[in-house]
């Protein structure tokens, strides 16, 4: 693990422009002063201030340290609000002022104060030496405490970060009834610890990268060595470290800059707010990307079938999960093709609809001024508009608007003869159906309207051609080298037991082979629960 880390960091620093903050700081800062500290406190402070400036949030505390006869001047630097001041006083300043003189007196030969501080005095959990100005600058900016001592060409950096962040809460988007309810927060350290707590094995590797010229966002690529393909992890790291952008404010930035098919409607990178989902995907041989400041983790490769899966499928018993998966798939397909099918059948092949229904639909379309295609498109747009309004408005108002919109506009439109009731029902159904699989939000509207247009022009033939076109596109996609539609196409029938249905856990012995070939089995060979021997008599 550390070998990998060294390699990656080495690559960062040698590769030049794309990332590695040292290089970049030079790129945009220009006047970075001498890169290494001098043995003079004033010069060092000057060098640091020339980069950092003397902003209101930069705290400089001057101290004098050492045993009384030869006191040394020292300066403590940290950014206001990013350091836990209580700990700073208790674990850092107090020992430096009280213990240092004693310790120095005990070993008169020693002259390296920084060394003594690091090894014998400072009580903070982390303390290390730093020798270059850029290193010190970025430490201060990240919330570390830096102590400079006169006539020493080194500084002591201690991490006592403490800033406010959200607690671990239940995610708002992915809610479960059964299963872990904790969600990621904006704090990367918290998120990593959530993962570590789920996967204790030393194989869990975190590779740290700093992305963003100005934001210097910490990005961590996680995988399990021995489970994930090493080439996959390397590819993710390569793509992420190739990003050159001024700021990374959310994992969405990373997602859009490393995805395989940037033009496609279909997402090729998965995301989740739940640590248990990330852990499950890591165990399947996937690689995760976590970004500081974003509660959404990315996972790759992301394949189409993930759309109809939820973590809960695995936490509850298989029967319900299997049925629900099939329902999700049906609703997903319906949500895309139903408007097109509706238009095609009514316009071109009404004989394929049950006779009574045809009459009902025809009667409800009586007096509607628009052609069917226009009616469907119009109401589709109105539905999407109402939905967007419902999302943007404050929560209590939002639901009111949606209800008013759905009920009043729908009923009134039908009564006024602007739309047929069948179209309104169809639109509402399709809209609701698309909520079931939120992973494809990008696809629904565009694909739906494409198919409606084709069905309007060419009927069922147009619809089928449109579907074939869409499907071909889906088949042509890849997510980090894995065909997007696998294992559906190319078909791997043994894997279908965890795609369209969710077979009992003890049948899912193998990891998905199309993602990883590293370790084939994820459970023991005889994991099926056994009935106890039937020797015991019933007790009456």
């Amino acid at each position, binding site marked *: 693990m550390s070998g990998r880390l060294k390699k990656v960091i080495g690559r960062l620093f040698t590769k030049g422009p794309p990332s590695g903050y040292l290089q970049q700081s030079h790129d945009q800062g220009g006047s970075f002063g001498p890169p290494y500290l001098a043995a003079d406190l004033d010069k060092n402070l000057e060098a640091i201030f020339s980069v950092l400036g003397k902003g209101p949030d930069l705290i400089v505390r001057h101290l004098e340290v050492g045993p009384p006869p030869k006191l040394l001047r020292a300066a403590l630097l940290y950014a206001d609000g990013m350091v836990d001041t209580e700990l700073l006083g208790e674990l850092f300043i107090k020992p430096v002022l009280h213990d240092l003189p004693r310790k120095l007196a005990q070993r008169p030969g020693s002259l390296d104060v920084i060394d003594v501080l690091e090894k014998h005095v400072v009580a903070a959990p982390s303390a290390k030496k730093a020798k270059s100005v850029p290193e010190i600058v970025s430490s201060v900016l990240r919330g570390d405490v830096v102590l400079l001592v006169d006539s020493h060409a080194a500084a002591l950096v201690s991490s006592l970060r403490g800033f406010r962040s959200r607690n671990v809460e239940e995610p708002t988007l992915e809610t479960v009834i059964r299963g872990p309810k904790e969600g990621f927060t904006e704090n990367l350290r918290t998120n990593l610890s959530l993962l570590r707590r789920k996967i204790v094995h030393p194989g869990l590797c975190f590779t740290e990268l700093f992305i963003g010229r100005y934001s210097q966002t910490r990005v961590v690529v996680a995988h399990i060595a021995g489970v994930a393909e090493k080439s996959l992890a390397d590819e993710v790291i390569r793509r992420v470290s190739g990003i050159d952008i001024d700021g990374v404010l959310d994992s969405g930035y990373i997602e859009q800059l490393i995805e395989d098919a940037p033009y496609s409607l279909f997402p090729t990178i998965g995301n989740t707010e739940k640590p248990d989902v990330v852990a499950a995907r890591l165990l399947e041989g996937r690689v995760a990307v976590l970004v500081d400041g974003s509660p959404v983790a990315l996972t790759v490769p992301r394949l189409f079938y993930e759309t109809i899966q939820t973590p809960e499928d695995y936490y509850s018993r298989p029967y319900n999960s299997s049925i629900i998966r099939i329902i999700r798939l049906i609703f997903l397909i319906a949500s895309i093709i139903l408007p097109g099918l509706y238009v095609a059948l009514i316009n071109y092949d009404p004989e394929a609809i049950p006779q009574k229904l045809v009459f009902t639909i025809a009667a409800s379309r009586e007096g509607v001024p628009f052609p069917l295609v226009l009616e469907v498109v119009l109401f589709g747009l109105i539905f999407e508009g109402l939905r967007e309004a419902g999302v943007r408005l404050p929560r209590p108002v939002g639901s009111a608007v949606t209800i008013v919109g759905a009920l009043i506009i729908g009923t009134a439109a039908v009564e006024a003869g602007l739309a047929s009731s069948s179209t309104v029902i169809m639109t509402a159904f399709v809209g609701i159906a698309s909520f079931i699989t939120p992973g494809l939000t990008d696809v629904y509207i565009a694909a739906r309207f494409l198919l409606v247009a084709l069905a309007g022009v060419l009927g069922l033939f147009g*619809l089928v*051609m449109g579907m074939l076109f869409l499907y071909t596109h889906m088949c042509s996609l890849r997510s980090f080298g894995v065909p997007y539609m696998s294992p559906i196409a190319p*078909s791997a029938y043994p894997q279908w037991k965890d795609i369209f249905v969710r077979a009992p856990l003890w049948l899912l012995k193998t990891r998905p082979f199309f993602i990883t070939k590293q370790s084939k089995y994820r459970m023991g060979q005889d994991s099926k629960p056994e009935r106890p021997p039937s020797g015991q008599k019933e007790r009456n």
Partner: protein
Amino acid sequence: MLEEGRISDRQAVYLIITSILPTSILFLPHMIYKGARQDAWLSVILITFFGLAAGEVIGRLARRFPAQTIVEYSRELVGPYLGGAIGLLYAGFFLYINSFVVRELAEMLTTNFYEETPIVVFVIATVFVVVYIVRHGLEVLGRVNDIVLPLILAMLGALVLFIIPTLKAQNFFPVLENGVAPVVRGGFPAAVFFAETFVMLMLTPYLARPDETRPVIAKAVLFLGGLQFLVILAVIGVTGELTANFLFPVLDLARLIRPSLFLTNVDPLILMPWILGGTVKITVFHYCATLAAAQLFRLRNYGVVAVINGIILGVLSLILWEDVVELAEQIARVIPPYFLFIQVGIPLVLLVIAVIGRKGRQENAGQ
């Protein structure tokens, strides 16, 4: 390398099935019945054996030249000029046979479902999608087919299931009323369909295991033979004497179904997998045509060829025949000997030359 992708054995079997099934199910019953009457099912057995024999020739060629297509190894076998001519012949033939299929599909749509829409609309739409798929390469084509074929089979299975109650056994008798001759006569035009496994002449080098060509073809032919057998039984069993009058008996079968559940008329729904299958079939042939042309002219990439070939394909399918009657007439009476010569005859000649001249990879004595 023109084509980077590889397909598995299973995908190859599926591709062969899809590249034969949609049209053979539509056209064969009428065609065979006209010749063989109630013994049509015997004709099917006959042409299945013929299909296996044709597959044997193609499979043996594939064993000798596992890394090359026919366009490439014909140059090696009979010299650059004659070999080039053979390559050109195949590049053209794939387009030509495909134009039949495009027209068949379009005619099926206009005569049965869209009486008022001009045929050119269907041709353009089909060719557009076909070119789109071909440009994505063989792997994507294989993946698309992985879903399309099961859809067709499911539909066909449902059709046969619904038909069973209406079968009439007396429609099959008397067996061999007029001797064996009609059975052969009925099977002859149908043989063209079962020799369409010759797409493997172009696809062999792109199999993950090119040596498997022979079993791949055999599996596909046996499956198709069995299916065709069932369909013929259903058609004869239900419509009997009338089969000769229907151009697309299977569609008429579909019309006979009154599932009595709640749908009154299912044939537009049956149409959907059919269009899918037909389009994939055209795509397979178009892919072969495109690959052959690109190899013939030693191009590095076939994207442009796919488009040019697509335009030619569309135009050919529109101008070659006046109407569906002429089309059906040609398929049944005029083309079979020529097509069979190209599909099986030339490979057989090439195989003989290869065996005599000890060209290509030698087969071990035991195999």
